[in-house]
């Protein structure tokens, strides 16, 4: 296991999550709800998060298809970099739970924690390499003021070697965490070990 990181309220520890309102009980779930849980996440049936969102199964289903296609699709941006984008957005939005999950995924994929430590300390200066700094800067820009994102911001990513498909993958990763953070932060809370 990796070394424990605890910086400014953020951590790479494995956290739980509990919903603030009633979740769907598996005993009373419809066949549709069970099917959506099964295709959303391997542990969805024991997760408060999925059991809460499955109150609206069709919406959860499409969210899960989008999320999995954005974070796991082959080709394009390396998955570690998608996780870096997700971690930056979660740090900015203050989503401790999402930040912990995606900090762990970054480490599993990149085999290092330097970028995560820097993002937890101060996302605005984070990025161990020129390429990662550019990824972090773009993630901040698209999170904080989307309408102000300009062609120069895209060019800055191209200048450090990102392809257009990689840039698209980064936009999608940042955008899907604008979505994910607003569910995790606002429907329940992290449970610390």
């Amino acid at each position, binding site marked *: 296991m990796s070394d424990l990181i605890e910086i400014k309220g953020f951590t790479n520890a494995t956290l739980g999550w509990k919903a*603030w309102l009633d979740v769907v009980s598996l005993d009373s779930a419809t066949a549709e709800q069970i099917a959506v849980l099964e295709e959303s996440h391997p542990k969805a049936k024991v997760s408060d998060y999925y059991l809460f969102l499955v109150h609206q199964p069709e919406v959860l289903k499409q969210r899960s298809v989008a999320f999995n296609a*954005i974070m796991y*699709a082959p080709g394009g941006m390396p998955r570690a970099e998608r996780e870096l984008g997700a971690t930056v957005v979660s740090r900015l939005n203050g989503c401790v739970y999402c930040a912990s999950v995606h900090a762990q995924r970054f480490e599993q994929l990149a085999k290092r924690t330097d970028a995560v430590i820097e993002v937890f300390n101060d996302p605005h200066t984070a990025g161990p390499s020129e390429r990662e700094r550019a990824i972090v800067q773009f993630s901040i820009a698209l999170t904080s003021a989307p309408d102000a994102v300009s062609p120069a911001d895209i060019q800055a990513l191209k200048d450090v070697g990102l392809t257009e498909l990689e840039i*698209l993958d980064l936009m999608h990763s940042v955008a*899907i965490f*604008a979505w994910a953070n*607003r*569910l995790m932060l606002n*429907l329940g809370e992290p449970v610390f070990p």
Partner: protein
Amino acid sequence: MTNAQQTDTIDRLVGLSPTLNTYSVRHQRDKVVAATQKSEEGLFDPTLPGLTLAERLLVALLACTLTPSVTCAAEYRNRLLALGTDHALIDTVSTGAFNQLTDARLRSILTFTHTLITDPVKADKAALQALPKAGLSTPEVVTLAQLIAFVSYQVRVVAGLKAMKLLEQQA
């Protein structure tokens, strides 16, 4: 213009047509394109029980106004006008003056929207529990949260693709 393109909201809002390179790049991730469009159609399905379509469009309008996203705010405003929603109500929401609304249910829905868009970390347990107190069922709360979160995603995809398209056109 192809049929598929006319029905894809993000392609329409960004102004992407198959002759543009940005269109080709976006459609290399067609699973994402399709799930994004289906998410939107599900969240704004007129037959979805619970929150009315007008309530959902007002939430989207406020979310886009506060973000801000000029393009997406105009889109939801147009949809509200097409639905026949009262102009005064649309203006009240788009100027951020929703605290003046007499409809307590709508006021609490828009207050939650405001918090989630402007400072999501402040939308705490009390903010969420205010919704059932205003008469929303749990499935309605889920719809509302997913809707606000989806619009937060949509505005960023639109903004990123617009910048990519502009760069392509400058070349």
